[in-house]
């Protein structure tokens, strides 16, 4: 059964986020040969339509309004619902990002539809679209199907491979004018705290520090290593509770769940709540001075030693490797 599926293209700092291309790939599976329509909402975003098409969208609908310059659930839900009303899709895919998490349940409630959040895989099997998603923060997984109505899902960044970019693809980019009415919650100010550069949930490499890092300054060598590898810095709750870093870096059952290609845990003991957030990473490296630390039980490679010695050495070695590449 082929379906028309809408995909929200998420814009951050003027560019499309990778997860939107991953969402297009997921939407292709849901569409089973039907049309995949990209949706953009923002102030001046129509120029990004072509990129959605090069990643597999058949066409793009754009809603532009000054009131959409920053994400608000009131503004974006009005825009999205207008597009949904025009297009009458059978499927809907968003990224499972701060924006997607905030917006998708509201749209689902409005449409009285189901919603499969945080899917890490999607397949067409036995006449159904089957989503895989982590439960218990990755301690288990479930496979889910939609039994009634719209097939609506959000996809976790970094898990579903995007289609190859093909700039020769063409498609229509049309605009829909929507009158954005009152916003009941207004963003007065955005305080940038997140480290410049790579987003933790989308990073291919995560360098994480625990209580063993001992101070806010202790995170510096980790940041240097992350920079060399184009990665992001994360933390255990131990490090956050000790105020070495912001809670937004926390990885684990009550923090972020990450699945990078490479996770390097520095001075982290490996409590079950921490493991829940990172143990599905592709390759795990542990650096800890205690050979008995639990983290070694899930690590692919371990070094028993002082992180303040090991991490700078690693940074130097990786620098050499990068030079040779």
């Amino acid at each position: 059964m082929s379906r028309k599926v809408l995909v929200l293209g998420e814009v951050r700092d003027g560019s499309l986020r990778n997860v939107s291309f991953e969402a297009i790939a997921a939407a292709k599976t849901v569409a089973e040969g039907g049309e995949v329509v990209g949706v953009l909402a923002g102030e001046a975003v129509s120029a990004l339509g072509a990129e959605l098409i090069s990643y597999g969208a058949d066409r793009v609908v754009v809603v532009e309004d000054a009131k959409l310059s920053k994400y608000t659930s009131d503004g974006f839900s009005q825009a999205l619902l207008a597009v949904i009303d025009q297009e009458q899709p059978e499927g809907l895919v968003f990224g499972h990002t701060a924006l997607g998490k905030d917006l998708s349940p509201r749209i689902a409630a409005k449409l009285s539809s189901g919603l499969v959040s945080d899917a890490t895989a999607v397949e067409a099997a036995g006449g159904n679209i089957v989503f895989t998603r982590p439960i218990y923060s990755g301690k288990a997984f479930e496979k889910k199907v939609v039994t009634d109505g719209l097939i609506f899902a959000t996809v976790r960044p970094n898990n579903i491979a995007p289609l190859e970019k093909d700039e020769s693809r063409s498609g229509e980019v049309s605009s829909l004018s929507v009158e954005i009415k009152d916003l009941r919650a207004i963003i007065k100010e955005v305080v940038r705290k997140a480290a410049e550069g790579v987003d933790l949930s989308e990073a291919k490499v995560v360098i994480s520090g625990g209580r063993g890092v001992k101070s806010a300054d202790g995170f510096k060598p980790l940041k240097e290593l992350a920079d060399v590898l184009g990665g992001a810095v994360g933390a255990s709750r131990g490090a956050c509770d000790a105020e070495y870093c912001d809670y937004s870096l926390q990885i684990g059952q009550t923090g972020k769940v990450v699945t990078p290609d490479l996770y390097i845990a520095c001075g982290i003991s490996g409590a079950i709540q921490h493991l829940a957030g990172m143990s599905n990473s592709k390759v795990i490296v542990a650096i800890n001075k205690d050979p008995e630390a639990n983290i070694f039980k899930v690590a692919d490679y371990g070094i028993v030693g002082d992180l303040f010695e090991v991490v700078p050495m690693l940074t130097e070695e990786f620098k050499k490797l990068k030079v040779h590449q």
Partner: protein
Amino acid sequence: MNIYVLMKRTFDTEEKIALSGGRINEDGAEFIINPYDEYAIEEAIQVRDANCGEVTVISVGNEEAEKQLRTALAMGADKAVLINTEDDVENGDQFTTAKILAEYLKDKEADLILGGNVAIDGGSGQVGPRVAELLRIPYVTTITKLEIDGSDVTVTRDVEGDSEIIETSLPLLVTAQQGLNEPRYPSLPGIMKAKKKPLEELELDDLDLDEDDVEAKTKTIEIYLPPKKEAGKVLSGELSDQVKELVNLLHTEAKVI
């Protein structure tokens, strides 16, 4: 001020997950208040103490959730409501839970509703925004600060590490992010008092809902555990050699760099 908290009973974070008969095995497991809901309860109590009013904690579940509701009362909430679905609903999802909660809340004239931003078991983060939409009130998710002045509200929202300062007004639904506050432990007098506080138990009938009204829109067809991670290689030798070996392994064996 009329304050409501949405609370889910969940597995203790210390628990390992095991399956039996294709389902999560709950035998002998410890249960707790969903950690994010603890922040919501704490915040509700603080808002009440600063503005007067009453805090009611609501949970949709079975009678086992009474224990966590009593804990919330012991922390300082005034009333608890259990909407017991045990006999009525077999398969539920987030649509189900949100619909039931909204049906209960629709005539309560809540000024402020607080929930967790996500339940650490189901993990969807849907219930809060769904309830707000069904009640047609604004919501702000993943908040780390809440300031109320009359009916004006200023909230700080965590957005992937950045903070947004948002102005909005009551009635409002917010969902708690870590860092919002330090949830208190129930005190001994608190625990004694909690025994006498009202804990109302309702069923779907009491909300004029049929099983059909809340029928799930999604279905779980399989649950499985991830492949067990085997302990790998702990390197040995001179530290500088270990570092070289590690870089080499990541490059040539694991091929992640």
